[in-house]
């Protein structure tokens, strides 16, 4: 068993990992930047070490500082949380060179799954359904039209070297594809100095559904059910729920098996996520694998009654999984609301300042994960997540009612937060009926 774990992160996830350490009887070492000296993870940990100034590059992303802190604290393992260095293969490698266990997958697995093309190839080879697309770049309009004829419209043309929406064209007809293909090529050449484009089937009104997986070092892999993360805004998840009401139990079971297969194909070790897009007909496509614990792992914990972070630490210790697939069953429904320091009435503009008063919600089926408290000053340098509110109910109706109740109870004075957005969401017929897709927020939310 580990004696001492350094948590190379901040905010709620650092507090979360400290809690898991405490329950396992492992000492925790917090690291912090100068602006985080009053953060809860610093006071909750058994030891806290200042590793640098506010900007993350000089502290939470500063590998030498973090390794040095682990060395002076005598930590035998590092938990990276999410974000920062969590999916940095080089960091995982350096930890191992320094004789410190990185609580996450080995560097080669991070590399393999971090490269979208490589990950897609692994999945295709393993028989995991991926979004149909031209393998590699297409140079001729004719090839694009042939692909579209096979896969069916709509299709999307993407710049091979790009990202961020540029050089992307969604096409519904041959005519649009002919035009779009040329435009995309020109844009790709202009913006990315590389006119190569590829064509993929475009999934209309998709759901984002992901599976939590756990894989130990002995080849045992289980999935801990699905999460529906369709409530997003600009690809930022705002609400996650488990299980999804959109897919049938049969689809859920099939996707679970596929997620395990994908995990095995990647020779994955640790806690991770296999993400899928699900189209209107319920057909699912692998999109990517996340090689870390996710913000929304807690929603799975609520329905599965399993502590994902403790499992993750035990896996890193070399233990076999504490549960087999047959031991895992989901009970009830859970939702997680991300309470961010953002003003939903003002296009989710980041807010901040001092939390003048914080009154967390309580009572049955309510869990709060946070690093804030009355008097906490939110540093402007990091992400805007203030707290995660997770509510559980026997059925989805109870979960929604409880969510409203708990959100109304939550008092964060001193700044605008996303609470009004969540309260709005829980009153939307489409959301209540389980009809919301990843486009829902952008199409419907006008601020409240």
């Amino acid at each position, binding site marked *: 068993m580990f004696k001492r774990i350094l948590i190379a992160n901040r905010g709620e996830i650092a507090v979360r990992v400290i809690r898991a350490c405490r329950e396992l009887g492992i000492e925790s070492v917090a690291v912090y930047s100068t602006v985080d000296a009053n953060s809860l993870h610093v006071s909750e940990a058994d030891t806290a070490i200042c590793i640098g100034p506010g900007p993350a590059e000089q502290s939470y992303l500063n590998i030498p500082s973090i390794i040095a802190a682990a060395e*002076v604290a005598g930590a035998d393992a590092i938990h990276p949380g999410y974000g920062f260095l969590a999916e940095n293969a080089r960091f995982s490698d350096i930890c191992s060179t320094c004789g410190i266990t990185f609580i996450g997958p080995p560097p080669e697995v991070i590399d393999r799954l971090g490269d979208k093309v490589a990950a897609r190839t692994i999945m295709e080879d393993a028989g995991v359904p991926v979004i149909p697309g031209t393998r590699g770049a297409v140079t001729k309009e004719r090839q694009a039209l042939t692909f579209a004829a096979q896969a069916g419209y709509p299709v999307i043309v993407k710049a091979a070297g790009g990202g961020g929406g540029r050089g992307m064209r969604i096409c519904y007809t041959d005519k649009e594809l002919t035009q779009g293909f040329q435009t995309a090529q020109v844009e790709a050449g202009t913006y990315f100095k590389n006119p190569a484009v590829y064509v993929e089937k475009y999934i209309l009104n998709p759901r984002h559904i992901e599976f939590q997986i756990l894989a130990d070092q002995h080849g045992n892999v289980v999935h801990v059910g699905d999460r529906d993360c369709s409530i997003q805004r600009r690809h930022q998840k705002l609400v996650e729920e488990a299980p999804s009401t959109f897919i049938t139990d049969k689809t859920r079971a099939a996707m679970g098996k596929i997620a395990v297969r994908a995990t095995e194909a990647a020779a994955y070790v640790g806690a991770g996520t296999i993400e899928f897009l699900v189209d209107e007909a319920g057909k699912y496509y692998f999109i990517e694998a996340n090689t870390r614990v996710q913000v929304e792992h807690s929603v799975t914990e609520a329905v599965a009654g399993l502590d994902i972070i403790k499992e993750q630490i035990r896996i890193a210790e070399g233990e076999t999984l504490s549960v087999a697939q047959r031991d895992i069953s989901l009970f009830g429904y859970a939702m997680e609301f991300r309470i961010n320091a953002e003003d939903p009435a003002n296009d989710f503009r980041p807010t901040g300042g001092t939390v003048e008063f914080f009154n967390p919600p309580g009572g049955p089926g309510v869990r709060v994960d946070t690093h804030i408290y009355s008097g906490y000053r939110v540093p402007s340098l990091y992400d805007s997540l203030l707290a995660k509110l997770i509510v559980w109910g026997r059925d989805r109706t109870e979960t929604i009612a409880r969510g409203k109740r708990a959100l109304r109870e939550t008092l964060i004075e001193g700044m605008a937060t996303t609470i009004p957005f969540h309260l709005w969401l829980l009153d939307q017929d489409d959301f209540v009926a389980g009809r919301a897709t990843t486009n829902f927020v952008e199409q419907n939310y006008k601020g409240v």
Partner: protein
Amino acid sequence: MDKKKIDELIAILKKNDLSEVTVEENGVKMTVRQGDITIVEGGGALPHVGGHAPVAKTALSGEAAELAELETKYTALVSPMVGTFYQAPAPGADVFVAEGDSFEAGQTLCVVEAMKLMNDIVADEAGRVVKIVAADGSSVQFGQTLLFFEPLV
């Protein structure tokens, strides 16, 4: 009314996290105030959650008064990194500087070992060592005071 002066006051207030600023000048009195006054005065900071005050982890409370006094009188040399503090280049070797020693700008005052590398901590300016506060061989964190010196002009 001097709008610029008010803006200056606001800047001062914001920058220094004050709850109120009042300026009375040539018969003109200006007050700028923000936030929840009671809580701000309370210090905002979390009163030792979990029984651990982060700062107290490195500085012993008994020495706090002495350190505070040194801080007002002298210049602190702080560690630019996390690591292990050494006064000498190798075990048994002479220390780089001892208390009372004078040093030149550019002179190595101590080393901080991090990731098996010895990092020389070099003086920015000339001075005289008043007190070495970090213990030889102890762990230091970013921003921790290693020694106090008196600059020599």
